[in-house]
């Protein structure tokens, strides 16, 4: 379509008329424009500070500071009213301390108590306290503050369900500035160990007003910046009573996406990625001399629950059939790239009553089919309530195909975690099959307790459990093993799929990162970058600092052998942690 060349004058006229129309429009909407400009100015103002509520305000990090990438951010700083692993992970041992602590091998060691004596009735514990200890607000730590802290757990101020660990305490008596006697209503093996967890954290009466946002403890660090969901900065305390922390400042950064965290590690923005949630990203780091990878144990048992109260899983034969049908090795391969360990019971190898129960229910589809036939549930359909967590979804897929092979049809119902899962499964027990990692240390008895969502008949083990708790060191471990065998082997209460691994990736010059996580606490006191700080050599725990091997699968069996030492008694190990 040939067209004549336009004269320039016409072009200009066209342009002119357009701008006139525009002018009229602008004049009519002047009021609107003014509003728009005003809001734009306000936006600009806040634009310049955008992100200030999410970024660290602890000031410039001093030389030798480190940044640790983690996954789950604490929703607040108060574990007395909020459960979950994220708060104690950041604060226990670093900001808050107990009279006793659990070291990396799962053994009880003195912390704020220099020592303790137990009377012949095994109900009165007399603690000698470390002198010269102060809280970060300047208050002294003494027998009075211990009495305050212990009694506070028993009060309504605590609403974390773990407070039940303190139920056995009858009285706290101040016997001097640095001597305190705690009387139990009955002998209890588990109580002292509980004192090493967050339940035993020591507070000062003047430091509990704003626990959700201000943490006042006796530990080597204080929280100098906290941005919910984003970061938490720990700064070394000047007047700490013990050996000062190795690093002057450690920033904990929370990454929702594991790839983002490892990219930040590669780019040098973080020094350690702790508790890695994406094991498939590890091989790249294991091949790289600039980084090291450690693999240790946690207390996170991934438990596939079978509602013991609901047909058809209320029949022990059906539960046994499920245990025989599920190939747990394949589940572990699929859910955690084969890292982690098969434990056969919700008891990690760091516990004194651990024993290898992997052979109790070997993978045997034929036997599973036979058991199902006996129970008469061939071909029925079961609903599997699966929380929307990557490992749970991956595990569920393997479980479903394994169960289908033995004639059990399983329908997956994915549920939002935590809100919906807690409501439907944990609270209302409205489920048949489900799966979740239970991360609290020594949580076996709470899993088996009356009214818990597993629906276990706790009368089957209550007497044994009471005997265990009341007994001496040796009978504690022996009786708890009986509890495990009764509930896990005889009654097939649940299927413990595997134990979550503790996977850390860090720059090669980082040392002092704990390999194992026998409680929910992440001890950062010895963490340091070598060459930056002279402190590396001082690192106390051999396991924490000395483990510089790149892939730790071999080293881990060594660790497992050490765990066996009973936390309380020194019982020899029952067996190593390597399940497969």
């Amino acid at each position: 379509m040939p067209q004549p060349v336009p004269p320039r004058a016409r072009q200009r006229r066209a342009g002119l008329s357009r701008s006139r129309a525009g002018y009229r429009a602008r004049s009519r909407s002047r009021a609107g424009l003014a509003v728009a400009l005003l809001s734009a100015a306000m936006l600009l103002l806040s634009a310049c500070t955008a992100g200030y509520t999410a970024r660290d305000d602890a000031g410039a990090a001093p030389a030798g500071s480190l940044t640790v990438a983690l996954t789950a951010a604490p929703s607040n700083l108060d574990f007395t009213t909020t459960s979950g692993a994220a708060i104690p992970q950041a604060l226990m041992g670093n900001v808050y301390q107990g009279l006793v602590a659990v070291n990396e091998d799962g053994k009880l060691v003195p912390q704020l108590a220099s020592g303790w004596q137990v009377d012949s009735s095994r109900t009165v514990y007399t603690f000698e306290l470390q002198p010269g200890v102060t809280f970060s607000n300047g208050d002294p730590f003494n027998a009075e503050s211990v009495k305050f802290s212990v009694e506070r757990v028993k009060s309504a101020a605590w609403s974390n369900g773990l407070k039940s660990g303190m139920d056995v305490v009858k009285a706290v008596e101040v016997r001097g500035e640095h001597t305190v006697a705690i009387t139990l209503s009955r002998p209890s093996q588990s109580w002292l160990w509980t004192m090493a967890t967050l339940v035993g954290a020591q507070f000062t009466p003047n430091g509990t007003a704003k626990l959700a946002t201000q943490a006042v403890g006796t530990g080597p660090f204080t929280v100098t910046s906290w941005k919910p969901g984003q970061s938490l900065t720990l700064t070394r305390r000047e007047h700490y009573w013990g050996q000062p922390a190795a690093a002057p400042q450690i920033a904990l950064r929370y990454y929702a996406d594991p790839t983002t965290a490892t990219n930040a590690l590669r780019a040098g923005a973080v020094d350690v990625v702790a508790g890695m949630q994406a094991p498939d990203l590890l091989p790249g780091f294991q091949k790289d001399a600039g980084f090291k990878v450690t693999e240790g144990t946690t207390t996170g048992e991934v438990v596939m629950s079978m509602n013991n109260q609901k047909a058809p899983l209320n029949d022990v034969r059906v539960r046994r059939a499920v245990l025989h049908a599920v190939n747990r090795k394949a589940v572990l391969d699929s859910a955690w790239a084969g890292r982690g360990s098969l434990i056969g019971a919700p008891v990690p190898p760091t516990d004194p009553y651990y024993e290898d129960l992997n052979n109790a229910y070997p993978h045997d589809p034929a036997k599973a089919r036979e058991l199902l036939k006996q129970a008469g549930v061939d071909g029925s359909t079961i609903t599997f309530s699966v929380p929307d967590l990557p490992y749970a979804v991956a595990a569920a897929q393997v479980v479903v195909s394994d169960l289908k092979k033995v004639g059990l049809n399983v329908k997956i119902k994915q549920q939002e975690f935590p809100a919906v899962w807690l409501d439907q499964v944990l609270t209302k027990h409205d489920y048949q099959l489900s799966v979740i990692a239970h991360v609290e240390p020594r949580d076996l008895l709470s899993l088996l307790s009356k009214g818990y969502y597993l629906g276990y008949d706790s009368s089957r083990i209550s007497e044994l459990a009471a005997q265990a708790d009341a007994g001496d060191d040796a009978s504690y471990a022996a009786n708890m093993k009986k509890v495990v065998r009764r509930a896990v082997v005889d009654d097939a209460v649940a299927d413990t799929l595997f134990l979550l691994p503790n996977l850390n990736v860090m720059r090669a010059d980082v040392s002092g990162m704990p390999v194992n996580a026998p409680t929910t606490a992440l001890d950062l006191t010895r963490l340091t970058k070598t060459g930056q700080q002279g402190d590396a050599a001082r690192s106390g725990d051999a396991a924490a600092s000395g483990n510089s091997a790149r892939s730790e699968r071999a080293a881990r069996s060594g660790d497992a052998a050490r765990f066996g030492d009973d936390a309380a008694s020194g019982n020899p190990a029952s067996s190593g942690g390597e399940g497969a």
Partner: protein
Amino acid sequence: MRTPLLLVARTLVTLCAASVLIFVLLRLVPGDPAQVALGVDATPELVQATRERFGLDRPLVVQYLEWMGGLLTGHFGTSFVSGQEMSAVVLDRTAVTLWLALPSIALALLIATVLGTWAALRRRSVDGLVITVGSQMLMAVPGFLAGVLLVLGLSLGLGWLPPSGWVVPADDPAAFLAHLVLPVLALTAVQAAILTRYVREAMLEVIGQDYIVEARSKGLTRGQALVRHGLRNAAVPVLTVTGVQLSALLVGAVVIESVFDVPGVGSLLVEAVAGRDMVSVQGIVMVLVLITVVLNLCVDLLHTVIDPRTRA
């Protein structure tokens, strides 16, 4: 002055309706903030005590009115999950997201206008086809993939830009810009692809119109006719789509926020919903509704500027 008053009234009604809706919906979905706070060790007694501490045991009307009273005085309320006053946090995190969304949508619009017009003009040639097919393909690329690829290439590969993170603009403007580039690029790529399609379609629609034929007949080339007379007409539907895309981007950027570790309002909303942090969710949703309403107002205003026919 009838129109501005009407606008304000309309905005207020929208906000009120949104506030009731979000308040009720949050209480209808399963999940309880007290349960979430207490996790797997909860007992029914402790959950009840926590509900009382959060004030969730009070009548819903009282809770709603208390929230409204706070909103009127500029307070979104104190989150019972984090213990923080949420007003400053929500507004600040929204500002972060606007830093991502506004430059992205502006850039995307610019690119789309050029490419879309080009593709419409040259719809029967190879380059026009390449643009059309290319934008189609880019539209299919999920935002996070674009993000991951950008990080691999420009950051980890070439080391030009930081892979993730956020710097407060006033603290260090240069570092701020460096951190902004990749997430903005990732968002722009997908948005530009979407908008290119709309610009192309709107232009094709315009090309056949009488006024273009007339412009041609008075001596303009096809390109000149389109740029002078076509663009303005094509702008009307494109503007509407841009407004919608921008509102969607405010929450939709959450994936990019996660990939680039940007503390935007999307990630704040996701965290708040997961924790059933009602105070935070309510505050965020109200801000987002307000922004959407303002955006729609702006789009309406721009329509009257662009198209005289829409003026009263």
